[in-house]
């Protein structure tokens, strides 16, 4: 999984999203140790201060915690991970709904398109 950073949004907020995705997808498993700030910064080719900022915010949100002597870890609270995942999904769906509204689609139309496409994908 590579770090895909866009140029028109603050880097730290994109890092927060991308680390979040790594946690939700299980690439960073609950309770496991996170690489050091420097390693992560180098991997993503970003400034270590920016990575530090992203990690502190994730820590405030509770997805990460610091053990003073041994580094940073992913939370073991799987319920919390689930909630954060849900929140991200809702956020993305509401963005999608907004776009559909701008295209002039009503609720029932959107729903029928989605159902149709899901059926299609099953085949």
């Amino acid at each position, binding site marked *: 999984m590579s770090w895909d950073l866009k*140029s*028109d949004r*603050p*880097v*730290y907020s994109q890092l927060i999203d991308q680390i979040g995705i790594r946690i939700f997808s299980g690439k960073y498993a609950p309770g496991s140790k996170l690489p050091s700030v420097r390693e992560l*910064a*180098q991997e993503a*080719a*970003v400034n*270590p201060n920016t990575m530090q900022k992203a990690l502190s915010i994730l820590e405030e949100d509770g997805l990460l915690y610091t053990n003073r002597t041994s580094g940073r870890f992913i939370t073991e609270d799987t319920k919390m991970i689930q909630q954060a995942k849900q929140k991200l999904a809702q956020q993305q769906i509401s963005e999608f709904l907004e776009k559909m509204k701008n295209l002039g689609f009503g609720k029932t139309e959107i729903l029928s398109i989605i159902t149709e496409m899901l059926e299609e994908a099953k085949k």
Partner: protein
Amino acid sequence: MSSILTCNNLSKHFGGKKALDNINLNIEGGRIIGLLGPNGSGKTTFIKLCNELLTPTSGELKIMENIPGVETKKVVSYLPEKNYLNDWMRVSEIIRMFQDFYRDFNAEKAYDMLKRLNISPAERLKTLSKGTKEKVQLILVMSREAKLYLLDEPIGGVDPAARDYILDTILGNYQETATIIISTHLISDIEKILDEIIFLKDGRVVLTKSVDEIRDQYGKSVDALFREVFKC
């Protein structure tokens, strides 16, 4: 964090031309800063003043409390815009020379980076391509354990793949308390590693801001903002 570099009303005139005009800056430790501006905006003049290659017409510039001179050169690692190394020397000889000159030079680090870029230490400089010479110079500069790195156009002559490696080298080789000032106009290539930017225009500072603030406030990249501010 303590300040590494301060300027008070710094000006440099060449005859009637104001290359730098009343600059006030305070740069802290642990930052990566982009010194950005169009051609002739004063970037190189500023960096030369930091290295005592030029002296101010008026005002003051201090690096860690000292006016540029012997003391500051111990802690400043400088990559000039042009190649100043002797062409007849072998890479390994230049490394030995740097070891003699700078107490904070780490030869092991230099050899390590040469190896990763497939540059043979036995090669004479004149047999290397322009881009490879630039890589050697950057390796020498980043192998010092300095407090302030001044990089004047470090990625101008190298191909995009090597650019990535060079940025990686910069990120991987500075100490967390050190500050790096990078002058360039290849903004899109480096903006994600910068903390802050300084925009210079006609010898004046027109904007200093963090990269994330710019993206938040203007909803665009530093590169796009640059194109707008400096539109011809």
